């Protein structure tokens, strides 16, 4: 698609003002660069989380093992969970979203590009802060859900829990800011003609997730603040012997924690809803059902949190309500699955690697969904809770589901982001290796779980009857590591010498395929006008659009012009493209927040030094904010410069 060339004569390509090299990345406000930064850093954290898992699997491979001490093992499962969820899967979703959402809606960037940069830096610093804990006395060792009162100072004396609180705090602020950005971008910056009902489903899911996020995260923020105060300032929110309530922590955490799992899965469901139609050469079946079932899941997701607490003793009324609501949420999920299957039915399937992963997603997610159904029943749950059955369930939905969805998205959009094609043959071999090793790793956990193996134990005795399942899981996990290395190999070699990617390698229907691979910095030379859910197919196959009852793209519609295949509003002249300037301000503010965070961690124990650190942090923030205000004025579209 040669938009840039054909209109180069009439559009003034903006002075890019991009700094070269590292400076360019540190000062970027471009959603595409930020998206790549999210994807790369998330993948690094994901590999670290994987190493933590491997260490655990080595320890559990044989009974009575002494590879890891109990406390180190506890740090491993805590950091593995926290890393995979907050530093792995969430930013992978955000990275793909950041890159693709503006392109898919025909926009030039996110609504708040500088805030976008703040989000990526805060995420990186928050993740780094969490890992500093290993070097200053020990990582948190209380589980990723940090149940009270184990998290109190007398039981968790190192600073690990404090680093967990502040690390999650920083990434939480980054997430909320990012969600605000997505909400305003998606609601307010769609190309003319792109009503909500014509948006790509990936964009729909990002919108739903953004709303879930801004309502779920504050509850976690309050809970962690209360925990911090308990640990250092003498409060007693979660101290049972002083009247506090350990179960209150669970309620607050899971009120956040359950919507969180929908935050993790819904964007990947959006990816599947993009990949399947493209490689079935059919529109998605039941677009409205898929979109609104996502909304329903988002809403219902707030009503089921206590299904994580069936064994706490909340009473039959509470258990019945939450059990019923949890069963109910299977319905919109099932709706999606049936619509995906109907999309493929009688489609002309193009079994690319991305399509392999999409089909892999559906199958593995169904298995994870079924184990979720048994867990949703309170009487069955009290047997299965806190056993490896739950570990099996969550990994089937999060790895078999979400991660395969991410891989589908990566194989789908890698050409767009890098201008190179990934190796399809290697991709398919790696897909099968990953699928088989994933099942080897996690399927036996259904069996060991139902045979009574509890979670979060660092070893087990040989007579328990769990040996075979654990051995198979460990072998599977080692093979999984090989699969990931294969993927890395594919990425590195493809970036270097993969085939050059055209703008539209998959004959796609959505707007991101209308621009070059990679896109120009300004995305679209002229904002396209959208007339259906498949703007690019309309342009490439106008006869199909007319057959399906569309208005047709030829013929006059008032005074709209045809330019580069899309309808555009007539304008008296082509305006210069306005892009946000690069700036270090978000980076500086993030550094300030990080320093402030260090101060807060040590405030209770090293009062004066910590308070000084807080002051330095605040001053750095102030300097960064001043710089931010100045650059936003310089950048203002009405500013004469």
């Amino acid at each position: 698609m040669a938009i840039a060339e054909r209109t180069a004569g009439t559009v003034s390509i903006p002075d890019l003002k991009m700094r070269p090299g590292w400076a360019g990345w540190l000062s970027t406000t471009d959603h595409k660069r930020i998206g790549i930064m999210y994807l790369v850093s998330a993948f690094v954290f994901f590999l670290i989380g994987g190493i933590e898992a491997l260490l655990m699997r080595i320890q559990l491979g044989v009974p009575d093992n002494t590879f890891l001490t109990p406390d180190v093992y506890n740090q491993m499962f805590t950091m593995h969970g926290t890393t995979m969820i907050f530093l792995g899967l969430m930013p992978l979703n955000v990275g793909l979203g950041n890159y693709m959402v503006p392109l898919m809606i025909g926009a030039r960037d996110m609504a708040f590009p500088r805030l976008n940069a703040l989000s990526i830096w805060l995420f990186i610093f928050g993740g780094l802060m969490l890992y500093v804990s290993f070097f200053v006395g020990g990582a948190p060792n209380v589980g990723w859900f940090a149940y009270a009162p184990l998290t109190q100072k007398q039981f968790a004396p190192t600073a690990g829990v404090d680093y967990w609180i502040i690390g999650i705090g920083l990434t939480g602020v980054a997430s909320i800011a990012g969600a605000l950005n997505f909400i305003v971008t998606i609601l307010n910056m769609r190309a003319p003609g792109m009503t909500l009902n014509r948006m790509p489903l990936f964009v729909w899911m990002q919108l739903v997730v953004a709303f879930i996020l801004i309502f779920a995260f504050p509850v976690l923020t309050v809970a962690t603040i209360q925990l911090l105060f308990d640990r250092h300032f003498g409060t007693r929110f979660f101290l049972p012997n002083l009247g506090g309530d350990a179960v209150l922590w669970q309620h607050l955490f899971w009120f956040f924690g359950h919507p969180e799992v929908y935050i993790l899965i819904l964007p990947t469901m959006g990816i599947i809803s993009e990949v399947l139609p493209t490689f079935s050469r059919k529109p998605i079946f039941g677009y409205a059902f898929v979109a609104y079932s996502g909304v329903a899941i988002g809403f219902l997701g707030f009503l089921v949190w206590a299904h994580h607490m069936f064994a706490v003793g909340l009473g039959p009324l509470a258990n019945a309500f939450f059990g019923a609501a949890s069963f109910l949420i299977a319905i919109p999920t099932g709706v999606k699955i049936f619509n995906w299957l109907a999309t493929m039915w009688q489609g002309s399937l193009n079994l690319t690697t991305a399509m392999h992963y999409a089909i892999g997603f559906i199958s593995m997610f169904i298995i994870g969904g079924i184990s979720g159904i048994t867990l949703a029943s309170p009487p069955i749950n009290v047997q299965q809770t806190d056993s490896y059955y739950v570990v099996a369930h969550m990994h089937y939905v999060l790895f078999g589901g979400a991660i395969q969805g991410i891989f589908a998205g990566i194989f789908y959009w890698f050409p767009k982001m890098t201008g190179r094609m990934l190796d399809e043959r290697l991709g398919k071999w790696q897909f099968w290796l990953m699928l088989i090793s994933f099942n080897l790793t996690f399927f036996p956990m259904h069996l060991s779980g139902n045979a009574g193996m509890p979670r979060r134990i660092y070893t087990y005795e040989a007579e328990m009857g769990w040996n075979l399942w654990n051995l198979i899981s460990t072998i599977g996990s080692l093979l999984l590591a090989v699969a990931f290395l294969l993927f890395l190999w594919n990425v590195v070699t493809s970036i270097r010498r993969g085939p050059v990617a055209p703008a539209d390698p998959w004959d796609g229907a959505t707007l991101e395929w209308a621009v070059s691979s990679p896109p120009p910095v300004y995305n679209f030379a002229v904002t396209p006008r959208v007339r259906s859910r498949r703007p690019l197919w309309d342009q490439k196959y106008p006869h199909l659009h007319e057959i399906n009852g569309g208005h047709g793209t030829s013929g006059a519609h008032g005074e709209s012009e045809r330019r580069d295949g899309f309808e555009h509003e007539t304008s008296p002249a082509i305006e210069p493209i306005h892009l946000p300037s690069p700036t270090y301000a978000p980076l500086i503010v993030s550094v300030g927040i990080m320093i402030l965070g260090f101060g807060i961690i040590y405030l209770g124990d090293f009062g004066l030094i910590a308070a000084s650190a807080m002051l330095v942090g605040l001053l750095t923030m102030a300097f960064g904010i001043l710089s931010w205000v100045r650059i936003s004025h310089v950048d203002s579209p009405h500013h004469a410069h």
Partner: protein
Amino acid sequence: MSELTTRTHGAVAHHTSLGVDNRKLGVWAFIGSETLFFATLITTYFVFAPVNRARPDFQDPREFLDIELTTVLASILLASSLTMVLALSASRRGDRRSFTTWLLATVGLGLAFIGGQVYEFNHLYHEGLTLSSSLFGTTFFVLTGFHGTHVAIGVIWLLSVFFKVRAYPDSPENVMDVEIAGLYWHFVDLVWVAIFVLVYLI
């Protein structure tokens, strides 16, 4: 209006799909998020109120809380919302002197509120109410303390807007900047009304 036209300088911002300014939509979403933040703190307060009553270290809110002082504080904050509206109105009219007066009045009232809170906290501390003295102390100070922090952040926000408008008086973004700072300020005031009613009065 075509999204490509930037001919109309002044109060009208660029075209958006919903017709609402991006920053205004963003602040409303942020306020939605903050609502959950305070709802959680308030819920925690109410979860522990009966537990506090049943404990040997029970501290009765009615004995500690001075309704006269806090009614004055509530009026101060409500008045500050009024001055904020007047500041916005002046900003829209382009009346710089009135804008300065009303915005600084809002800041002053906000600072007075914070001063009053500090005074109240100090008084309560000397009466024996601390973060660790009882469940009431725990929940009360964290709830009202974080509200006060939000007021302080609001004061800093308002002052930043003030100085920005002073530095760039002709920027057409000023009116929206004032408006969204005002939205946040009104929200913080509304949270205080909720806290005042639920904690002090009931």
